[in-house]
């Protein structure tokens, strides 16, 4: 696991701004049609085109039912788009893989395995030897703040703890991209803010590409470099907002920062706006 020293006084610049052209994820004119139980066609996503650079923390924000999770699942390879293509590192996505690691709102831990067993699952699947996988996993478990809980079972853990395990489990197999589907949605407010902080601390270390789905505006602004605002169903991209706030971000400072507040107000207004005429060109 690469550990980069954090540099608090440097603004987070996207890779392309630094002169390195690395489009990690390319979504080209993706549309998704679902068949509902009444055999009717429901257009969930309409002509989504988006490029996400390597190392960027991008949030997908929108009201319920706008298809943001669907978009994430398409990038994850769990769902095939009806039209259009999604690529990662230039290659079209044909299915799930260890290069794109998911973290779900429902945690989706393996209940028959302990915390350690869950985290070791990915590395073991990749052929890592037991002793090394165990050592690696223990380090990760400590990093997410669960030292001492290695032999607990999911049913004995609280929601926040389960999500930490889920995060550790996904990080364990070193995906290039983290796909997070409203991961803190099922948690209480206090746990949520703690995990947001912890996530940023962990992310700062090796700056993976993160695609983060949420319906919370302040969460999106707090965490991301870019916020992709989506319209109501059928989901289209309304606007992509660059969040120009320096890292590392501390909640206490940010909440009082007028620029942060301005972003939140601006984006909330965008979502409230019922007219869907402002489409991204």
């Amino acid at each position, binding site marked *: 696991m690469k550990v980069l020293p954090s540099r608090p006084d440097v603004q987070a610049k996207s890779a392309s701004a630094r002169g390195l052209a690395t489009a990690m994820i390319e979504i080209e004119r993706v549309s998704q049609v679902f068949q509902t139980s009444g055999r009717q066609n429901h257009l969930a996503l309409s002509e989504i085109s988006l490029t996400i650079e390597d190392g960027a923390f991008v949030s997908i924000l929108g009201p319920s039912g706008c298809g943001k999770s669907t978009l994430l699942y398409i990038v994850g390879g769990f769902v095939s788009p009806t039209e259009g293509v999604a690529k990662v590192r230039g290659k079209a996505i044909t299915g799930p893989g260890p290069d794109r690691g*998911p973290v*779900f709102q429902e945690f989706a831990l393996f209940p*028959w395995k302990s915390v350690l067993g869950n985290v070791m699952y990915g590395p073991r699947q990749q052929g890592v030897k037991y002793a090394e996988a165990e050592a690696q996993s223990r380090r990760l478990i400590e990093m997410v703040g669960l030292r001492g809980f290695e032999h607990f079972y999911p*049913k004995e853990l609280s929601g926040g703890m389960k999500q930490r395990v889920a995060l550790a489990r996904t990080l364990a197999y070193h995906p290039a991209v983290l796909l997070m589907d409203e991961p803190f949605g099922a948690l209480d407010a206090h746990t949520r803010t703690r995990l947001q902080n912890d996530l940023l601390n962990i992310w700062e270390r090796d700056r993976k590409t993160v695609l983060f789905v949420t319906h919370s505006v302040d969460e999106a602004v707090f965490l991301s470099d870019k916020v992709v605002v989506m319209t109501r169903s059928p989901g289209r991209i309304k606007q992509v907002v660059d969040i120009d706030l320096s890292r590392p971000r501390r909640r206490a400072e940010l909440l009082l920062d007028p620029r942060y507040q301005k972003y939140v107000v601006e984006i909330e207004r965008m979502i409230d706006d019922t007219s869907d005429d402002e489409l991204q060109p």
Partner: protein
Amino acid sequence: MISGRALISRLAPLLACIGLLGVWQIAALVLSTDSFPTALEALRAIPSILGDRESLINILASIRRMAIGFGVAIMVSIPLGLMMGRSRGVASFFNPLLMVTYPVPKAALMPIIMLWLGVGEVAKILVIFLGVSLPVIYHSFQGAKAVEEKMLWSGAAMGLSAMQRMIRIVLPAALPEILTGCRTGLVLALITMVTSEMIARQSGAGNILFNSLDMGQYDTVYAMIIIIGAMGIGLDAAFEKLRGRLVRWSEPGFDIPLSFA
């Protein structure tokens, strides 16, 4: 140091047995008919049954048939149920058959099976197999269906193939439900064992039971009831212990209880 209360609750089933036998004893003495021996008389007959070589062979044959019927049934039913749970095509194909045949008491098929296969081992094992299969298929189906899709997606992202996901994720995740089905299957194995031996005599514990009825050996009849009852209780208790150990990690479910946990 176990408290008095805890001790009583641990011994409660034993006390219940003694209580029931007590009630039996009193009722038999009150009714005082030939055809209703007292509990003590029945209990006294047990060692002679177990000591008799022929009877012992019969009883062991019953147990063997149950084991084979049960074993083959779960080997076939669990994979079938799991596949039904994860594939809509397989489910649509087998589900109607399942729904139609489930309520049919498999023992009612005995006459036809006896016509085709005679009164020997195979016929009885087949009935036991049929009796055990259906609940195991049904519960494996339900268990597999209920496995969270996101869990499977997590596995797929880690690089597990479809077959690996079935064996390493669906199977363990569905195990609590599967074992509930197996427990029902065990109960049915016992019932079909006795019924098959009632209809097609020739060998087995049920055979001894109904033969002694025909021959007027009433002590033996009641003794066999106790023996078969003990088999049922013993097997169920052993299975519950095994089940508890295998699925220690699971949340308690709200399925139809077969007995007090």
